[in-house]
């Protein structure tokens, strides 16, 4: 199994552990991640308004890189997944737009024909790899561990662009938790928005939203949280203390990246999973699992 690998910006800076651990579990599961030669930032929520032509061109360039290798694209960030899915869909449906973008890209000898699928690691694990193959690699199922799933809004909505899970009743992340041997904990904010995109100019809003969901998950009895998005991770883990301060809560909920949780179940340790980098220490979880 081979995929073109698109890490996005955050795993190459703030959440470097996500990149490292993704590669590790990919190796363990015999998924080959093919590095692309310098794909650009997906442009997130901002570029499409700031400079739509450049936005389409850069993302088409990324898709073309994967297409040239004859591979589908693997993402590890919710927003990257959404943006690339939306661009891909637009280019596949609108022939005129595709031509226009290809005209621009021809200047750098790049062309995209619309033949790539964009898939998040979570989806690939559940469908391309499949629960059986994953379970075979799990040495230490996370029995007794109550894990709150935080999807991150952009892996669920809008459903036309993404089309994997039902945004009103998602199950994928919870299925994933079960495959790892853990017990998913339901809470109202599991599919809500952490507000990360507003952080640089509207920090209190993002912190308040984050705090609300952390509190809900904690109240629902979760021991920890897992998220498939490094941006949500940055809020939930990095700003957990700020969130407590803002809304007056006292939540202490360690947060894991998607591959970290799987790695834990596969038998990887604290150092391998780079858990030292968490702002909210995961030591208690390791102790609970007898993995110290």
């Amino acid at each position, binding site marked *: 199994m081979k995929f073109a690998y698109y890490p996005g*910006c*955050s795993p*190459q*800076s*703030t*959440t*470097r552990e996500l990149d490292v651990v993704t590669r590790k579990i990919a190796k363990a599961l015999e998924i080959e991640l093919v590095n692309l*030669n*310098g794909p*650009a*930032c997906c*442009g*997130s*929520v*901002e*570029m*499409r*308004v*700031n*400079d739509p*032509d*450049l936005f389409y*061109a*850069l993302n088409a*360039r990324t898709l073309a890189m994967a297409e040239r290798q004859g591979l589908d694209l693997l993402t590890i960030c919710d927003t990257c997944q959404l943006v690339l899915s939306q661009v891909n869909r637009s280019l596949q449906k609108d022939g005129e737009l595709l031509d226009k973008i290809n005209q*621009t*890209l021809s*200047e*750098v000898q*790049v062309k995209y024909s619309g033949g790539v699928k964009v898939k998040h690691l979570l989806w690939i694990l559940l469908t391309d790899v499949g629960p059986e193959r994953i379970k075979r690699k799990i040495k230490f199922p996370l029995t007794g561990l109550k894990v709150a799933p935080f999807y991150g*809004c*952009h892996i669920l*909505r*809008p*459903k036309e662009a993404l089309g994997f899970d039902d*945004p*009103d009743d998602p199950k994928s992340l919870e299925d994933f938790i079960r495959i790892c041997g853990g017990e998913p904990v339901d809470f*109202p*904010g599991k599919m*809500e*928005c952490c*507000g990360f*995109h*507003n*952080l*640089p*100019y*509207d*920090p209190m*809003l*993002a912190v308040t*939203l984050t705090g*609300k969901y952390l509190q809900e998950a904690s109240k629902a009895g979760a021991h920890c949280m897992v998220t498939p998005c490094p941006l949500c991770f*940055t809020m939930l883990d*990095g700003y957990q203390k*700020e969130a407590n301060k803002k809304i007056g809560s006292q939540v202490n909920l360690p947060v894991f990246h998607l591959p970290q949780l799987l790695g834990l179940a596969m038998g990887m340790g604290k150092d391998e999973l780079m858990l*030292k*980098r*968490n*702002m909210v220490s995961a030591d208690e979880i390791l102790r609970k699992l007898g993995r110290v």
Partner: protein
Amino acid sequence: MEKVTARVFRYDPSTDDTHRYETYEVPFEKGMRVLGVLMYIQENVDTSLAFRYSCRRKRCGSCGVLVNGKPRLACMEEAKAEMVIEPLPNLPIVRDLVVETNEYEERIESIRPYLVRKKQPQREPEKLLPGNFTAVRPLNQCIECFSCTSVCPVNGIQWEGFSGPATLIQLARRMLDPRDDMDRIPDAGKAGFEHCVSCYACVNACPVEIGILDEVIEKIRKKYIEKEASLYGKYNRTWGDLVVKNGLVNPFTLMRRVSTFDQLLSNILMGIKFFLKGRISLKGKKIPNMDEIRTIQKVIGEKR
């Protein structure tokens, strides 16, 4: 399916201390809607049940309720085997499923939801080219049902100054109408559109399928960046600058450039903690083939 079970929220503020849920069993009819369930209960089981409806076909926008936790139009939503039916959230309850939407309607009224034009048409009927109205057409379908505002997480925490998607749709509907010549951006600012977190919850909930993010929020953002020297504008432009400079966006660099001095100062402790955990790249990576990006940018610039 022979029967459906509906657990319905009941509350009379004039007599009850608190709300309760009543469970009803209703015979199922092919194609049944939640409205049909409510009407059956009101006609045959409990004539005191209060709920709103009128047109029965997603035009009047008055039958909004929560069905299994999601805001839906009762007249359109399919009846399921088991349903929990509750009033829309965050609004004062009049009785049972009837809420007072005045708060939301006043927000709409505050952004002047009517055509403002200083220059009158040269002749009537005016020549109106359909092509000029493509942006505003989808917004015309809004029935002000407030499903979007009910599901919006920012509205959900009652964030001060944020009016919610419904208000912004009504604003954009005039802003994008070629006949309207009032500058609607100050009102957009007052309506708190900057607090939209782009989570698409509103898009997912809209019963008439308005692409609120694409058709409303992004259109306002575009005008906002062009006009206002605001924090949001600065943030958006900085993102673009970083992409064009390095191909990637380094969060630290972004924060550093966008935050005001005060903000940076107040975040210093946090910054240090992040740094100690290795989460801050002071400089940020650059992709290897920036010349490609620059070429692409140049080509696009020439085309314009």
